[in-house]
């Protein structure tokens, strides 16, 4: 610090040295964490940290907007999509592109060095702090309003175009207009019978999961007469997740009873 002031530790300084490491950790969490959800949550941490910094830099309006709009809405949308896309498979951390990791890190360090040399020591005089600007129109929000609806009114209007495009884009790529009418119950039934007739698919509903003494969990498959587990009785996601229970010991019982019946029958025949 070039001016000899009392080592007065202001509130801003405290918030900075507390929040800054947090935001950096959050950012690193985003990049390094294996599971997508953890990454998304660590970004939330960063964003909240930033909001705190905004507040300390006399930008209360921005801080609020950051939390409500950015973290609240935008980040949440991310999480919805994450959920939809399925967070089950953790991303493998093995790097497939040859030399990508090394080069990327070197590049990052290069840019960081470039920025440090540029930014470090570049400001000579005191920050002019926004307090005066805030008071001019009676508060931060009013000041921003004056700018937003004065000097930058055109940008404001322009951003309207942006939002329309975003909305239309979302509709375009996500909304699948239905060409045929929704299939009512009669059509569905007809389809099932047709499928049974042509491809021999089982027309009835899928078999329920197995109900055993030990467990009647959804993940337990029902047994077929010949003792094997019927595939259709286990839901796809669970199968994918491998959360099904092994029915082998259960089949033993039927197995032994069958064996017994067989034994008896053999005796009758010979």
């Amino acid at each position, binding site marked *: 610090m070039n001016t000899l002031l009392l080592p007065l530790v202001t509130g801003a300084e405290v918030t900075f040295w507390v929040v800054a490491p947090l935001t950096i950790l959050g*950012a690193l969490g985003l990049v390094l964490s294996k599971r997508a959800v953890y990454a998304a949550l660590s970004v939330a941490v960063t964003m909240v940290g930033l909001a705190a910094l*905004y507040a300390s830099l006399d930008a209360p309006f921005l801080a609020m907007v950051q939390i409500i709009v950015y973290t609240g809405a935008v980040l949440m949308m991310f999480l919805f999509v994450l959920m939809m896309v399925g967070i089950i498979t953790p991303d493998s951390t093995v790097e497939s592109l040859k030399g990508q990791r090394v080069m990327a890190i070197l590049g990052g360090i290069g840019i960081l060095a470039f920025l440090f040399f540029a930014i470090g020591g570049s400001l000579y005089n005191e920050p002019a702090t926004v307090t005066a600007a805030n008071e001019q129109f009676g508060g931060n929000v009013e000041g921003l309003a004056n700018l937003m609806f004065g000097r930058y009114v055109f940008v404001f209007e322009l951003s309207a175009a942006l939002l329309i495009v975003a909305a239309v884009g979302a509709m375009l790529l996500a909304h699948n207009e239905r060409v045929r009418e929704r299939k009512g119950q009669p059509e569905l039934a007809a389809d099932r019978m047709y499928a049974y007739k042509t491809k021999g698919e089982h027309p009835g509903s899928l078999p329920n999961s197995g109900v055993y003494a030990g467990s009647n969990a959804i993940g337990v498959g029902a047994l077929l007469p010949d003792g094997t587990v019927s595939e259709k009785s286990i839901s796809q996601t669970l199968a994918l997740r491998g959360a099904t229970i092994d029915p082998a010991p259960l089949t033993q019982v039927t197995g032994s009873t069958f064996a017994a019946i067989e034994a008896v029958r053999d005796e009758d025949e010979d």
Partner: protein
Amino acid sequence: MMNPENYLILAAILFVIGALGVMLRRNALIAFLCVELMLNACNLAFVAGSHITGTLDGQTTAFFVMVVAAAEVVVGLAIIVSIYKTRRSTSVDDANLLKL
């Protein structure tokens, strides 16, 4: 008073981490999140700039950047979802039919 350059340096660090994320992470969503992180870093720089220069322009810009980021997220997610529905995977590396 604390030297304002620290804010700029913090912004720079976040920016570079974001850039690294885009390069290293294979999941499209995470890469896109990193881009959002870069934009947030710029926002921080804007607010710090506004603090340094004493004009509110920086903060207005930050606000507009948020608007832009929001729109971008909508479009980005739409594209990523459409890719997901087609390929059942959001990995950026799977999308390499267009090459040479």
